[in-house]
């Protein structure tokens, strides 16, 4: 079993997404970025991911909508909602739809890493 956690970061902010990906990779995770919901769904079809970090508010297809599709296509993937948006509601709604947790943006990387780790553990237990 490969212990490397495969993470997909979905955010329309390029600078944020790219830096996060770099930083996660630097911490021995296998991270990739997607600039939007559709892109993320395409990538999910091609590759397998353990954890997905999903921004709630994006143009084109928003986080909640993307989450619905993700849960249909690959229900195994644990999703962590990123709420840059002021509302906790979206985070809670995401959790109702099957997201693992939500994190308020901007969050320190350590918090994100913790949550990713927890999500990964949950996925492994479920598997």
């Amino acid at each position: 079993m490969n212990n490397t956690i495969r993470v997909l970061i979905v955010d329309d902010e390029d600078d944020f997404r790219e830096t996060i990906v770099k930083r996660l990779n630097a911490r021995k995770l296998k991270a990739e970025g997607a600039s939007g919901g559709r892109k993320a769904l395409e990538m999910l079809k091609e590759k397998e991911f353990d954890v997905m970090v999903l921004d709630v508010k994006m143009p084109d297809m928003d986080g909640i909508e993307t989450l619905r599709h993700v849960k249909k296509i690959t229900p195994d993937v644990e999703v962590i909602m990123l709420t840059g948006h002021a509302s906790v509601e979206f985070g809670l709604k995401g959790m109702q739809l099957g997201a693992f947790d939500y994190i308020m943006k901007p969050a320190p990387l350590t918090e994100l890493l913790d949550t990713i780790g927890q999500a990964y553990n949950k996925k492994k237990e479920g598997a």
Partner: protein
Amino acid sequence: MERNYIKIWWQHCLAIVGFSVIPLLIVSISLYVIFNKIYTDQISETLLNRVEARRDTIDLFLSERISQIYTVAHTNKTHELADEAYLNKLFSIMHAKSDSYVDIGFIDKEGNHLAYVGPYHEILKTANYKNEPWFDAVMSQGIHISDVFMGYRHFPHFIIAVLIREKNERWILRLTINLKNIDDIVQKAWTGSLSDAFIINRTNKLQTLPRFGGAYLSPPFYKNKRNDLQEKAIPYPDFSSTAKTRVDRISIQGHDVFIATSPIRNTRWILVTKESPNEILFSFMQGRNWTIFFTSMGLLVICTGAVLFTNALINRMKETDRENAASSDMLLQANKMIALSKMAAGIAHEVNNPLASISENAGWIKDLLADEDISSSPNFQEFSDSVTKIEQHVNRARKVIHNLLGFARRMEPEKEKINVNNLLDETTGFLENESRHVNIRIEKQYADDVPVITSDLSQIQQVVLNLLNNAIDAIGSDGVITVGSRYLEKSDEVEVWVADSGKGMSEAELNKIFDPFFTTKEMGKGTGLGLSISYSIIEKLGGKFKVQSKLGEGTKFTIILPKH
């Protein structure tokens, strides 16, 4: 907008009073006027009847006298009448059953007494009447009743004279009437204690003795009381030309009097009666007084009712206005809050994304600084400090954003570890200068065993600050504020309290203090929102908010916070 309640009060009160008093007065006054007229008319009628009855009695008396004298004059021979002994016998018969006559005389056409019977024999036997006014009158008219005059006897009297014709000779039979008879009849009209009655002739000279003012042959005088020597007697108006019975209501010397006058037939006399309305109108006056009394009572009741009713109305109006103002304020506030929270949410989103990028990039630099072998670079420490500072300030900005969201109340409370005693120290520190200024001492009663709790520092600080501000306002100046903390081991909670030595609150006020917009502070000083916001903050943090107060002793607010 503040209404002018005093103006409304007066308008309303005057409207009620006006609309009820005016009809009441109209009814009362018109009733009074109508009754006054009816009553006066009736009194006038009564007085008219009375004076005519009295006059008729005099008429009858005089008519009887005339017919008796006429009979005597024409049933006796003239030579018999001229015989004084015969006349004396005749007069004795006439005088036997009545005291109407004083004396009798038989006079020839030259005015000389042929015979005289009576008390004034010596004076009158030799008197000549040819030049007396009555002598001519009886010569031309046949029968004559004189006015009262003094005559030769120098005593008031009046006479009835009858002319006797026989062939070409003429004689006169003359009788003096006892004035007491007329006086008696007239004086029967002195009914009440203030009424009067008398007879005057055509030259306004008294023919009878009046009750109050005047003597025979003088003009009548008005006096209100018989024995009042101070009172000036005023002549009555001249009624001597009265041609028909009449009743007048006139004012003499400020006294309201009824005067009834009636001419007496066969004479040139006028009967005058005077009545005081105070006596004859007594029951009417009583009625009038009762009317005035009841009207005044009615007015009093109306005015009292108007005042009480208006007070109640104005109070209700004030209350409604206050409620309206409160609810419109609340609506305004709610709208403001919605707008602000939308704006805050927008700003938060727009600022959070760049902040996240800055934060991640700074983090990335930090990662790189740790990995690469540039720790030996002379500027390594500078890089490291700089990045740390960037992270610090991003963190600071993040807090600002969270506070903004906290203001919008849509954000979960911050969870941070709080040393409660430190928090209290820091917060009281803000107000130490202000309280010292008004001579208020802040006493601290911290327990040592208070654990660190996890909660929202800035929100708790806001609540404590609010309570301290309220405490200072409640005291005003010179007093003690006690701030304390305690660990409740049983329930694993921390209790914080702020107590003041201020004026305290009544039970009614206590029930309202958490209501939005309720304030005991002066107009414009408090929004009435502080405690209601504090209450909702503490509730949101999972705590409890309590208050105890006693009028004159002070108020104590207690917050109980969960440890986690």
